[in-house]
């Protein structure tokens, strides 16, 4: 290697994780070439003095102590959240609440957007569920609910039965037969049994 090539390798040799072969090549050249050895010593001395000045500084307790306290506080706050996350019996409403809490706790815009989307999705799912339940009750089933309430069947149970009846029954406006279809009849019999 020429002196110019060796000087270009000075930077590589300054790296603590430098390639051992390059380091050995440079070191062997420096032991033979006084000019390069002098240039390398100058560079090394400049680095040492610059680094020693730049490294001068201190830890400010007024800055670090509140930061450390904040992290400890954050750890305490995150503990109950972790417990809830592992609970397998979370209802959709609890999940929605958790999402809202996470959204409020998130500092970055992207995290807020992500949690916001999750919360919005849950709201849509819940609303769709609610609307599908109410629309499932057909006008024709009101009479069945009335007759069941006379027989003492609880209202929620009646609602479920009504939904099931509506799902399995033939269309109400069918002109062929006013009687309930065979599947509806079967269900009604199963329910009354």
């Amino acid at each position: 290697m020429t002196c110019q090539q060796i000087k270009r390798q000075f930077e590589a040799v300054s790296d603590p994780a430098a390639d051992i072969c390059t380091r050995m090549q440079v070191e062997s050249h420096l032991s033979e070439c006084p000019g390069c050895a002098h240039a390398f010593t100058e560079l090394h001395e400049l680095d040492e003095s610059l680094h020693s000045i730049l490294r001068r500084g201190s830890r400010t307790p007024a800055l670090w102590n509140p930061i450390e306290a904040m992290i400890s506080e954050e750890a305490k706050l995150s503990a109950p959240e972790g417990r809830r996350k592992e609970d397998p019996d979370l209802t959709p409403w609890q999940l929605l609440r958790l999402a809202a809490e996470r959204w409020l706790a998130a500092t970055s815009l992207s995290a807020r957007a992500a949690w916001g989307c999750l919360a919005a999705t849950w709201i849509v799912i819940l609303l769709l569920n609610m609307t599908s339940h109410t629309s499932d009750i057909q006008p024709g089933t009101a009479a069945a609910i009335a007759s069941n309430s006379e027989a003492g069947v609880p209202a929620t149970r009646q609602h479920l039965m009504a939904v099931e009846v509506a799902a399995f029954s033939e269309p109400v406006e069918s002109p062929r037969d006013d009687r309930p279809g065979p599947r509806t009849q079967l269900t009604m019999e199963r329910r009354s049994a």
Partner: protein
Amino acid sequence: MHNNGSDHATRFLALLRPIERDLETYCRRLIWQPDEAADAIQNAVLRAYKAFDRYREEARFRAWMFKILTREAFALNRKHARISFHEVQVDRDALSGFAGDDIHAFAEELEAEVSAALRRLTDTERAVLLLRAIGGLSYKEIADNLDIPLGSVMGSLARARSKMQTMLKRKTCSKESCI
């Protein structure tokens, strides 16, 4: 579960404490507005704590923290226009009239000279020099830290060192000629 949360924080703080001084020194030298150093450090540490789940053991914690802090400092620096030459010049003029017989005063003057010279480097040159000098990172870690190729790290470091040498020499020469 509560123990897990506090263990997490304890582990994070145990890794953070030994490098707090270096992080602070690095940030104070890297940031343009000195009063924003505390904000940058606080934001970086909290960001690092939140991302600590994703921290991989094979990466050095020191290099990982310096990376987060560098990004925070660069983001704050981008908000401000580069400090004008005039402002640096005023500092240098004020320093030239300083009595230099006291060793502490001399050290302070030298420190101010180096800080002034440091401010005239580009963001990348300054960051590379500081990551090497204060962070003690390898070139590969610096390249990863700043998202630049390894060759650019060596180039930036050589340029930064050369500029610092020229600026400090010029100042020393001008002082000697004054005397």
